[in-house]
């Protein structure tokens, strides 16, 4: 290069930097933030977790928990929308109401729920639609979660269908509204209500009072929550108080404004030009997260490391998890667990790794579903303004010493 050209180039680059704020910024995505520490403060029934807010409580599960298919209740993430959560619910007097377009209105006590209906269990992943949001650049609006706004538990309860059958749906019933007990500071603030179309609800949808064999923790929706396997958690209403059957869709903030992605094929848009039409986030895409090692792990040279993690999708099931220990140059198949927890659960995976070279190495995992859906590289994830549905190939860089 001629010396003069060099100066010209330098000047041009400097110019672009200076003009940075007024030129169009490309939307590119990277690995989610992975260096947050757990808070010194433990919330009720929880171990100390990564904490973003106390009112409403927003708690994230640290990465090293994701080495097994079930997430312990006391490490399970927490996300509420309103500041006022009932601080005491009496299981003796609590009832869930079923009303609207039903033949018989019901008020079911917890005891009736546990004794007068068939008891069922489903193991399912609960993941916030904004999980891993911190991956999006430019920064998408909302809490800048790492990859721990998720967990998997065995939920026990009663089929929603059995309850609706007992109430008896009227002919024109189309929508089922679910109301939680959290309250805003102002009376006029909309309640946290979800509406689901009858046609969307299958036998796997349950009202759960138990999680991993214990009462639901208070912060995970005690005494009763909706469980919709395969769907993002914004639909899994906590502290369920009321079920209303209607024939007409009501306009609701949490359905019509929040938790939506662009309604186009790639579900993407640019920061400068938002896509006008949106749709609810609903079903989860295929994803995997590494639980071990983490960026803080000490990995010894020529030792026998077992890389562990979890993979899931919306219920089609996981076909394979591919693992790379050289930053994506070569890939091998991980061993999957027996899958006995069912198609909505995490598949725990493991992969033997003997680090033969000293220094930094990047471990990557890519899940592939039974319908052939696979995780893209994080840089290939397209941007959306709410920062929803990130599912980039996971990466952990460790130092081999």
């Amino acid at each position, binding site marked *: 290069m001629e010396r003069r050209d060099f100066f010209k180039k330098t000047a041009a680059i400097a110019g672009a930097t200076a003009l940075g704020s007024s030129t169009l910024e490309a939307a590119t995505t990277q690995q989610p933030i992975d260096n947050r520490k757990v808070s010194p403060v433990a919330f009720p029934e929880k171990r100390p977790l990564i904490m973003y807010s106390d009112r409403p409580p927003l708690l994230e599960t640290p990465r090293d928990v994701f080495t097994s298919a079930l997430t312990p209740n006391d490490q399970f993430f927490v996300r509420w929308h309103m500041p006022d959560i009932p601080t005491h619910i009496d299981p*003796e007097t609590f009832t869930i109401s079923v009303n609207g377009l039903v033949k018989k209105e019901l008020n079911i006590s917890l005891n009736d729920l546990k004794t007068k209906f068939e008891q069922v269990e489903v193991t399912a992943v609960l993941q916030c639609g904004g999980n891993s949001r*911190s991956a999006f650049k430019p920064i998408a*609006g909302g*809490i800048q979660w790492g990859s721990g706004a998720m967990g998997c538990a065995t939920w026990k309860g009663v089929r929603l269908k059995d309850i609706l059958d007992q109430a008896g749906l009227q002919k024109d019933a189309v929508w089922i509204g679910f109301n939680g007990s959290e309250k805003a500071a102002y009376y006029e603030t*909309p309640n946290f209500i979800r509406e689901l179309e009858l046609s969307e609800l299958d036998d796997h949808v349950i009202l759960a009072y138990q999680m991993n064999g214990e009462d639901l923790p208070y912060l995970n929706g*005690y005494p009763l929550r909706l469980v919709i396997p395969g769907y993002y958690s914004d639909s899994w209403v906590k502290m369920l108080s009321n079920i209303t059957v209607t024939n007409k869709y009501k306009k609701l903030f949490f359905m019509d*404004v929040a938790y939506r992605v662009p309604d186009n094929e790639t579900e993407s848009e640019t920061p400068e030009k938002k896509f006008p039409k949106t749709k609810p986030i609903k079903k989860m895409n295929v994803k995997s997260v590494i639980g071990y090692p983490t960026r803080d792990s000490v990995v010894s040279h020529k030792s026998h490391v077992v890389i562990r993690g979890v993979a899931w999708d919306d219920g089609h099931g996981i076909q394979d998890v591919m693992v790379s220990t050289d930053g994506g140059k070569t890939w091998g198949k991980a061993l999957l667990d027996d899958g006995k927890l069912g198609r909505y659960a995490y598949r725990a995976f493991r992969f033997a790794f003997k680090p033969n070279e000293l220094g930094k190495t990047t471990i990557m995992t890519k899940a592939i579903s039974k319908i052939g859906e696979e995780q893209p590289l994080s840089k290939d994830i397209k941007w959306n303004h709410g920062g929803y549905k990130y599912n980039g190939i996971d990466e952990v860089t460790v130092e081999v010493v």
Partner: protein
Amino acid sequence: MKKLILVTAVLTSALFAQVNEKVEVPYVPFPVKMGKGFDAIQTHCLMCHSFGYIINQGRQSKKFWHGKVIKMVDHFKAPMDEQAIKETTEYLFEHYGNGKLK
């Protein structure tokens, strides 16, 4: 005998919660940047949510913060007048902004 039967009845129907008293969500102090407009933040924002909810949105443009404030007014029905909207937006952009207007 009558008494005994009563006791049994109570035992079989009793449902125990894991936590039998009021749950207390801890209060967590967040690092707050003092400055012009903070009074408005305290009055209008912290009524409903923690300071953590604000600072964990990441650094954002003035348009973003204005949009958030408007969302609180339009959708969450926060009682704020034009002055309050202006003061909170400017505070948020000054302390938690990314330097960009849009």
